[in-house]
């Protein structure tokens, strides 16, 4: 589903290269974990997948279902089925959360040639998804993410993911800022989305989240490259021994 080939990318503003020859393949139905120390390029990778303009791909390609997405803007990628759960979701005053959800869902439906959702059907879907994440509907009456706690923001991201039903989900440090109860709720939310036609990329610093979202593959990112890949036992190994051993082997 996702194939990243020899990807090189840099920050547009100052030209700093962050991704330096990254290769990664994630198949439909797979849950892939991307781990790595701070500064290894994990968040940058998630932004590049979503199409953030602050980064420029200088070499290599990103194929989604066999087609390059480099020329697609963030909205086109999203309607094609790519979803990024942000590490730091933006607070946007003045944009009502419900209005935002409705516009996002209907814009995606429009791009796929589907009719817009009728209001009762829309409300039903939001209520169900919110209930499954233990979210209060009153929260959704507020402006988008404004005044939400860190944990509420993360839940709101997963809520959007459930409602938009993407094919490729990228979760950037979704565990950060969550207490253990919230972590379980969020992980359950992600697990219900596991399906044979959907791939999930979980970016995380710690193994903790992977106890709840058990990955099929684990990849270690360091200095903008995948330096080691393995199964879930690799994550346990990293937890026990730290990144130093893996980095040492690769050097």
């Amino acid at each position, binding site marked *: 589903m996702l194939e990243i080939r020899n990807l090189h990318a840099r920050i547009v503003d100052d030209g700093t290269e962050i991704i330096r020859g990254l290769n990664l393949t994630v198949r439909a139905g797979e849950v892939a974990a991307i781990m790595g120390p701070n500064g290894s390029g994990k968040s940058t990778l998630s932004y590049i997948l979503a*199409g953030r303009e602050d980064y420029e791909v200088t070499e290599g390609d990103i194929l989604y279902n066999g087609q390059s997405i480099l020329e697609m803007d*963030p*909205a086109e990628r999203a309607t094609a089925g790519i979803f990024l759960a*942000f590490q730091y979701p933006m607070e946007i005053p*003045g944009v009502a959360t419900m209005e*935002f959800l409705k*516009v996002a869902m209907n*814009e995606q439906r429009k791009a796929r040639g589907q009719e817009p959702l009728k209001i009762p059907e829309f409300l039903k879907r939001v209520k169900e998804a919110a209930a499954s994440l233990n979210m209060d509907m009153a929260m959704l009456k507020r402006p988008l993410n404004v005044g939400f706690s860190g944990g509420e923001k993360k839940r709101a991201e997963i809520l959007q993911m459930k409602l938009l039903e993407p094919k490729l989900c990228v979760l950037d440090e979704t565990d950060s800022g969550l207490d253990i109860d919230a972590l379980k709720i969020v992980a359950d939310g992600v697990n219900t989305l596991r399906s044979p036609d959907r791939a999930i990329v979980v970016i995380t610093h710690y193994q903790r989240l992977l106890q709840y979202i058990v990955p099929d593959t684990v990849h270690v990112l360091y200095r903008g490259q995948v330096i080691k890949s393995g199964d879930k036992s690799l994550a346990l190994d990293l937890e026990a021994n730290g990144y130093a051993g893996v980095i040492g082997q690769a050097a």
Partner: protein
Amino acid sequence: MNMHTTPQRTLAETALIDAFGERLSLLPGDGAVMLKRDDAIEAIKGGLPTRRIESWHYTDLRRLLTSVPDFDPAAVAKAIAPIVEGSSVLPVLNGVSSAKWAAVEGVTVQRLSEKLTDGSIAPGLDSYGSDDAIGALNTAFVADGYFVDIADGAQLDKPLELQNLQAGGQTHVRLAVRVGAGANAVIVERQAGEGAALVSSVSQLLLGEGAEVTWLVVQEQPDTATHLAQFKAHLGKNSKLTLFIMNAGGKLVRQEVVVKTTGEGAEFTLRGINLLAGDTHTDVTMVLDHAVPHTASTEVIRNVVTGKARGVFQGRINVHQYAQKTNAKMACNTLLLSDDGEFSTKPELEIFADDVVCGHGATVTEIDHSHLFYLMARGIDEKTARGLLVKAFVAEVIEELDDEAIVEALEARLDNWFVAHG
């Protein structure tokens, strides 16, 4: 003998002076009113204000008012529906008030032409200063409008909409409202039309003790019209006024706000939205006098600037010497969406009391790119996402009004502008 040279008159100045000569015999008014008109035209003969007059520095009326259309009494202004369904409507069509209106309990309405003829409005025609060009223009030519009296204790459950609808040519209208003690009302002042008109419109509001009024100015002139407007209010003891101004049209627009708190405990709230597009000039100038102790005011102006539009906000707050415990806060935020647009902000605080809380702030920003990315990452295309963010910027101010029918009505006007200019 004083010797001084008068600069040559502009076409517009000449046209106004000539028009006065032609209109004079048709204008209603007793002797007192006619004296006020004479004074007013003398002021205009002295020349329209230029940038050398401080309060007109950013709006050089002499230079910007390039032409003055003739009066067109035969023109027909098109009636429009009120912004809130079920409102009582008092229309002024092409400068002429209606002789008939549906009665509203507690509300007495008089045509302004009658108040001019019998002279009872004469004291209200005084200008408030030597730089009061809009007041002078209006006093010279005003022919009609309404005088509305809302009785003590009256509670209006539906808005009262005062419409000033032009049909080209010139219209000079005055809308005077007195709100009795403890009365409560929502008043909509609608300024619109279809012609390349010169409009002057002066609104006067007197709030009695404990009266509460929300006054909404909805200005949607075509981009061929010059709209010169003034809103003057006196706030009595413990009265509350929320003034909301939406400028969403006009080629050359100046909306002056002249407010004085005359009773202790009075509260004034100004919220303004300027939606600026094309090659237009829009100026909102406020002079607020905190004249007695224990009064409060807040002002928030939000501007969206596109195309080659130019905008101005001048906010002057005078806190008089005895006006202790005044609390005043003013903010002006601009979203600049084009390289050719501009917005000038001039806050002025003149404080003669020593125990007050006063502050002001101004910002100019572009669309936040991280916000745009976030919305687009959810599949919302760039144009729609930008629209959402721009609308959010101004909608915040509307939502503060906290009255569902009004918020919906104003958001509909907002959508209307975005459809035309998005």
